[in-house]
Structure formats: structure tokens, C-alpha cells
């Protein structure tokens, strides 16, 4: 798998080099971007930006998942909760993070809180749908089996619904992770002083494409690494499944 990943990577780089050296589009070449990356690393900016964004994404993302799982359960389990919560979730999912920002600034100022909140929202809104679907897809027989052994709702949630819907929750977690990273750029519009999204916007001010690309690629790589971690966790958590 890793081998194939590398093949894919090399192929992608080759394609990029080809396209840019033909000069068809005004993009920087891989070499230019690589040089910029070296420069950013040696100035220490890339590392501090990456750490700043990583901290925001991790916090927002973990909070988002942590809230989404119980809320998804409530919605899947209690029709009343579902009726009350779902319209809001559906509604806010269609609203772009950019539109949330003014509201976040008004209510939360310009510190770390609104930035993390915007990321939290992105992670939460995607994961909650997956968790909800997972909860309603749990095989009824397993729930019945737990109930006849004396389990109450809380236990069933923790010991049956969560493990049984892990594959669904994982979908939410993976998509939520992507959304979190994709949202960090918007979040760092809120008076960020460092961060990959912030740096990218600065690059946009001067249309400094190498800087933009270094930020984008760093975001991509960090996202990819976190995704691999999630997959590894998933593999451990769903080892019980008979997979195709």
C-alpha cells in the first residue's frame, strides 16, 4: 500500500512538473515550491505555523467528534431529540464557515476561541450526521440481546451502539477531519497571527504562489497523517468485522 502511495506521489509530482514546465498555467514548479519550503523551514515559520494550525484543528476536531457522538446518539435514539435538533444541524451544515465568522467575532472576540469554534462546528456538523445514521443502522437484534441481559439506554449506548456503529462514526471522523483542515483557512481569517491558513492568506495578498503552495501542501500532508492515524485506529476498533 505504501509502495502504491509512493507511486501515486511520484506520478503526481511528475505531472505537476510537466504541466508547469510547459508553462501552460501560471503555477510554480515543484522545485520552486520545494525551495520555498526549505526557506520557510529554516526561518522557523513553517514549523510555528504548522503547530499553530495543528493545535487549532486538533482541539476543534476532537471537541467536534466528542460532542457529535452523543448528540448523534440522542438523535438516533429519541425521536423527540431528533425532531428538535435535526433541523438546526441540517440548516447549519449548509452554511459556509465564512458566513459564520462575523457572528463568531461578535460573540467570541478575536482570540483562539472563535477560530476553534469554527473548526469545531465543521467537525461536529459532519460527524453528527454519520453518527446518527450509524445509530439508526445498528442491528436491532444486538440491542435486544443487550436489553434482555439487563442493559439500560446508557449502557446500550456505550457498549452496543458505539461499537456497532464504529464504521459509521469513522466515516464521520474522517470526513470531519477533512472539513476541519479545510476550515482552518477560514478560521484563521479571524485575526490569526500565525498558522498555515494565515500564511496562505498572506501569500494571497502578494499572490506569492510558492508560499500558498507550501501552506496548502503542508495542510494536505498534516491532514493525510492524521487520516492515517484515524485509519489505524479504525482498523483496531473494527477488527471484529468480517470485511470484504
Amino acid at each position, binding site marked *: 500500500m505504501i509502495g502504491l502511495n509512493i507511486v501515486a506521489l511520484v506520478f503526481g509530482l511528475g505531472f505537476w512538473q510537466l504541466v508547469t514546465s510547459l508553462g501552460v498555467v501560471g503555477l510554480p514548479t515543484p522545485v520552486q515550491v520545494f525551495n520555498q519550503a526549505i526557506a520557510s523551514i529554516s526561518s522557523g515559520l513553517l514549523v510555528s505555523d504548522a503547530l499553530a494550525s495543528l493545535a487549532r484543528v486538533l482541539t476543534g476536531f476532537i471537541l467536534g467528534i466528542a460532542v457529535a457522538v452523543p448528540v448523534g446518539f440522542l438523535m438516533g435514539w429519541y425521536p423527540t431529540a431528533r425532531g428538535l435538533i435535526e433541523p438546526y444541524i441540517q440548516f447549519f451544515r449548509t452554511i459556509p464557515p465564512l458566513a459564520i465568522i462575523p457572528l463568531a467575532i461578535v460573540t467570541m472576540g478575536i482570540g483562539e476561541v472563535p477560530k476553534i469554534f469554527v473548526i469545531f462546528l465543521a467537525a461536529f456538523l459532519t460527524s453528527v450526521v454519520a453518527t446518527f445514521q450509524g445509530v439508526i443502522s445498528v442491528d436491532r437484534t444486538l440491542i435486544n440481546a443487550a436489553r434482555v441481559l*439487563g442493559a439500560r439506554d446508557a449502557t446500550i449506548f456505550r457498549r452496543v451502539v458505539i461499537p456497532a456503529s464504529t464504521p459509521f462514526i469513522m466515516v464521520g471522523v474522517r470526513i470531519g477531519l477533512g472539513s476541519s483542515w479545510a476550515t482552518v483557512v477560514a478560521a484563521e481569517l479571524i485575526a490569526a497571527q500565525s498558522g498555515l491558513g494565515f500564511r496562505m492568506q498572506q501569500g494571497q495578498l502578494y499572490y506569492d504562489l510558492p508560499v500558498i503552495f507550501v501552506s496548502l501542501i503542508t495542510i494536505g500532508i498534516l491532514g493525510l497523517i492524521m487520516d492515517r492515524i484515524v485509519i489505524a485506529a479504525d482498523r483496531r476498533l*473494527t477488527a*471484529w468485522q*468480517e470485511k470484504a
Partner: protein
Amino acid sequence: MNPKISFKDVSRTFDVAGRPIFKALDRFSLDIEDGEFITVVGPSGCGKSTAMNIAAGLLQPSSGQVVVDGVEVKGPGPERGVIFQQYALFPWLTVRENVEFGLRLQNIPKQKRREIADHFIDLVGLKDFAHALPKMLSGGMKQRCAIARAYAVNPKILLMDEPFGALDALTRVQLQDQLLQTWSKERRTVMFITHDVDEAVYLANRVVVMAARPGRLDRIIDVGLPYPRTEEIRLSPEFATLRNEVWRAVYHPAAAA
């Protein structure tokens, strides 16, 4: 003395869009005494599982009610152990964890829990598979795991839906005898569904014969044979007579009421 379990005119219909209402169970009434062993036989699809699920509190009757210990059944509870026709093991738990599931809920300390679980795992012959996940078990082994899980919580009432259906003959006989032993020793009440007429007669105080379309009680046959049941009894002419009687009852049912 009041019956332990009392089915009072229990009916259950299924409403499948576009077809006439289907009567899976029609005015089913039955009293099961405390400490009684009842087996239920009847053609496939006659409502045996439906009746049992209603008693377990997992299915709502369309009309009528089931009363257990004088209280109407509203939902499931650990005092009524259930073995499902389709096993229903938790696929993410090992055999031991499956068996310990009910014990955990009773807050039994770890050490004790382990002991009890190991006892029942051993009883059903899965000692070497305590750490196996359900997907690694054969059909019969899954069924045995489900049996151990139900036994472990030590319920006063056992509702068993074809629990020995997937077992080979020897294991089956062993588990039958094992079940009869604990039943008599600990005064359990058992409702046991089977499609094996031999098994029905061998285990029961009374055999309940059901008929299909609509699913209903057809007849109750008293098994006058003494406990403990032995291989000798199984080979006796009385046994053969009862067996034939049950067989005839199942396959030449009276016309629907």
C-alpha cells in the same frame, strides 16, 4: 399458586404494506407454572418466535398481554434470559467478553465475573476459544456461546428459541442433560422452542403444540415421564407413544377456530 408466566389472549399482527394484515399469532393463551419446563413445537412460521419475543418484552402484542410474576410485561429484563434463534452475539467482543456482558451489568466484581464466565464457557465446550471473536467461530460454536451468555446471568426464567438447533447430536444430548440438571436444581421456569419432536418430549413437563395460519395454540400434551430423564426413558415405549402423539398433533392440526 399463580402461574409464573401467563399469556392472556395474545395476538400479534404484522402490517406489511400492500398485503392483507398478517396474523402471526392469534389469541394465544397459556399459563406456565413456576418451575415448569415447557417445550413449544409447531411448523415453521407458526409464531413460536413471535410468542417468545412477546414474553421477552421485545415485541409488543397487538392485543392481549403477557403477565410474569403477576406483573404485565412492558419490556425486557435480566430475570428473563433469552437465547435467540439467530444467536445475536456481540461481534466486537470475544467469547469471554460476550459471556461476561450480562455479569458486568450486575456489577459483579471482576474476579467473580471471570470465574462464572469461565465456568459456563467450559460447560459449552468453548474453553479453548475464550479469546476468539465470533467471526472465528463455527455455527455451532456461536450457538454455544450464546447459550453460555444466557446461562451466566442465572435468570429465573429461560426463554430459549431453538437453542440446540445447530449442534451435533452428542453436544446436544450433553447440553440437554445439563439444562435439565440446573433446571431442577435451581427451580427455573423454561420455555423452550424446538423443531425436534424427540427433544420436545425428552425435556418437557408439557409440550405446547402450535399450528399455523393463523399462528395459534393447537394443543397441550402432558408428558407424564419422571425426572431425571435418562437414555432408558428415551428408549421406553411410553416415550415412543408420546412422540407419536406430538408428531400427529403437529402435522394433523385441528382446523382453525
